[in-house]
């Protein structure tokens, strides 16, 4: 049966399967598999950039290892056979009447890849959202819940834009822009060179002016990706190595500059980040905007930032306590980040972590202002951070900032209307110590 299927059909079925599997992973249908939820880190580009930027190899970044090895051995094999974004774009590309990418469009992939790596070296990776696996994940991770707003859908935008580009100019993305494809091509060339060095054979020199087809070209297929196009080298142009080095340096300088410009410390109006999020200045770069944490949050309180935290913070995860709050017994979001922008935390560490500080507005508080027997905030606080103060014979709330974790339970349940009388404000995330332990000597 299988043998009787035409080659095209087989390929079609395989692509469909890959898209479905990737979509299932993105939508985090399988419960309890947090590393599987961080599957965009299977992209070696993402995991290399994250590991380089963090100066640490985490468990999640090791997920990128198989594809790294595959690229060393087989170059862009992944692009042809396994990239879910590529599979989708092939189908979208068939909508167009054009058969090939714009010939005159420059090959940006290697440059983008080098800028990403360079900026990662400077500790502030740029353009991580250009990784096709991130874009795929972003699209499929946003469909959740009934109370869905357009803000929740923002991470899906990049794949939609990619689809539109491909519908007009098929193959343009895969051939000329995709940085992951370019990285694999570079790795493939490096692998081949190494192989020949080890085998003491001369490495094959690319012939200038000719398109080098991928290692496993399928000429019969109409949707063969034309890959690794190399522009002819004009007279007076720099050689490839020098150009690559300069682009790398450019990326590093850009990353360094943007990191310096980043907000080092959230002010009173800073955003409340998910528990375990890296420092604000780092987060803007390291977050790939893949939407995994937003998808993972069972309470649905992680939403993409609309740019409230500045342009650099666009689409990064922030917490919204208007309806629900960060559950004491949950640390799911800390396990699904593919880049480590949200670090893995044990439940105990998460429960001890303060991500914000609640403050009572006495002019709005029903107890302070209207002498109501309210104390909902005190009732809901799991950390005994709301103290009772008697005022005019009525119990009134006061926040103990040393105990407040900023979970937002008080804010979401405050019956004082909008704005709430108790609101969580951002702070630099730090562990909180209970009253039993004297930590007065430690900086808070």
């Amino acid at each position, binding site marked *: 049966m299988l043998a009787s299927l035409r080659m095209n059909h087989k390929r079609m079925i395989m692509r469909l399967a890959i898209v479905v599997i990737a979509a299932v992973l993105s939508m985090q249908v399988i419960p309890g598999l947090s590393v599987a939820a961080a599957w965009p880190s299977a992209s070696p580009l993402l995991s290399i950039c994250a590991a380089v930027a963090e100066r640490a190899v985490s468990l999640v970044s090791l997920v990128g290892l198989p594809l790294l090895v595959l690229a060393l051995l087989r170059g862009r094999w992944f692009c042809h056979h396994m990239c879910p974004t590529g599979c989708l774009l092939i189908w979208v590309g068939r909508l167009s009447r054009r058969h090939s990418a714009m010939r005159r469009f420059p090959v940006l992939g290697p440059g983008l890849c080098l800028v990403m790596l360079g900026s990662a070296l400077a500790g502030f990776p740029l353009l991580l959202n250009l990784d096709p696996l991130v874009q795929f994940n972003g699209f499929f991770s946003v469909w959740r819940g009934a109370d869905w707003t357009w803000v929740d859908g923002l991470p899906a935008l990049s794949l939609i834009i990619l689809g539109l580009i491909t519908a007009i100019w098929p193959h343009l993305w895969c051939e000329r822009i995709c940085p992951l494809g370019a990285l694999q091509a570079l790795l493939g060339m490096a692998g081949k060179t190494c192989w020949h060095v080890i085998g003491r054979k001369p490495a094959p020199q690319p012939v200038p002016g000719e398109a080098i087809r991928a290692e496993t070209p399928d000429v019969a297929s109409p949707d063969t990706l034309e890959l690794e196009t190399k522009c002819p080298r004009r007279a007076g142009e720099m050689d490839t190595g020098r150009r690559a080095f300069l682009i790398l340096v450019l990326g590093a300088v850009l990353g360094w500059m943007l990191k310096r410009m980043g907000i080092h410390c959230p002010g009173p109006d800073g955003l409340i980040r998910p528990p375990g999020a890296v420092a604000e200045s780092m987060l803007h770069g390291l977050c790939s905007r893949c939407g995994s944490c937003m998808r993972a949050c069972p309470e649905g309180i992680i939403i993409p930032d609309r740019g409230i935290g500045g342009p650099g913070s666009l689409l990064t995860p922030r917490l919204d306590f208007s309806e629900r709050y960060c*559950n004491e017994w949950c640390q799911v979001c800390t396990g699904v980040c593919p880049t480590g922008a949200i670090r893995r935390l044990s439940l105990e560490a998460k429960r001890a972590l303060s991500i914000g500080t609640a403050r009572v507005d006495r002019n709005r508080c029903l107890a302070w202002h209207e002498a109501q027997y309210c104390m909902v905030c005190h*009732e809901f606080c799991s950390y005994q951070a709301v103290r009772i103060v008697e005022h005019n014979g009525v119990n009134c709330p006061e926040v103990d900032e040393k105990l407040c974790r900023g979970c937002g339970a008080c804010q979401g349940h405050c019956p004082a209307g909008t704005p709430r009388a108790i609101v969580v404000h951002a702070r630099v995330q730090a562990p909180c110590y209970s009253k039993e332990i004297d930590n007065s000597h430690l900086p808070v």
Partner: protein
Amino acid sequence: MKSLISRRQFMTGLAATAVGSVYLPRMAWSASGSEPVIYVVHGSDPGRMLAAGIGRMGGWAGFVKPRQNVVLKLNAAWASLPEQGGNTSPALVECCIQECLRSGASAVVVPEKSCSNPKDSFERSGIGAAVKRAGGRMYSPERHQFQRVAIPRGVKLKEADVVRDVLEAPCLINMPVAKSHGGSTLTLSMKNWMGSVYDRGYWHAHNLHQCIADFSSFIKPSLIIVDALRILTTGGPQGPGKLAYPNQLIFGTDPVAVDAYAATLFGKQPFDVLHIKLAHDMGVGCGNLQQVRIVRVEA
């Protein structure tokens, strides 16, 4: 000289007034017209205590009708552990459901709108598992499972969205845990109904104590069993906080009398708790413990 009333008329009138002044106020406190009775069972094993208390009240047959549902309103509001005292004791819940089913109830339904995430509350409190083991059905009501009702005697609370199962229950058992509370001073049987209404925020914003009393004027449980095995004296309603161990279960049908007694376990006078005073004044029940017959049982 002809007197206005005869000696016999005077004597009859005097006797009637005397009888009336003694008994009429008591009749006003309870619908049945008799003195409210509560049964305070002290012991160590919840199963035996439950059997002793119900035995004194005439057995399960008086409450559970064969082939009818029992709706149990317990307290599983918080994702805290059984020994922390934030929720009804799971051992007690399990015994109660088993007994109800053994007495011929077709099903025991346990609706609970918890404060913490329902999954965590049911799991960590141990109640979800206890209900399942005993053969009951516990659920967290969705928006569509509430029904709007008018509270005719309500002063502040004129209407409320209440879980339909609670409204339609042939046998409704209220099984709260006694604990302290920042807003309502104590959480006892009357406060426990907040776990069956949709909009709790309204109560907090519109005189919580009055709303609690108002709702109690509306809802009539068949039986009240207050879990005072261990009580949170501080840090309630969620805990953790300081615990005391009265090792008691309080049985009754008059919510105000039951709550009035339970308040004394916290070292308070019943009328120190405003909603007990308000409910008493509204005639929901009798909060004056001098007029309540307290039967103490050792199990």
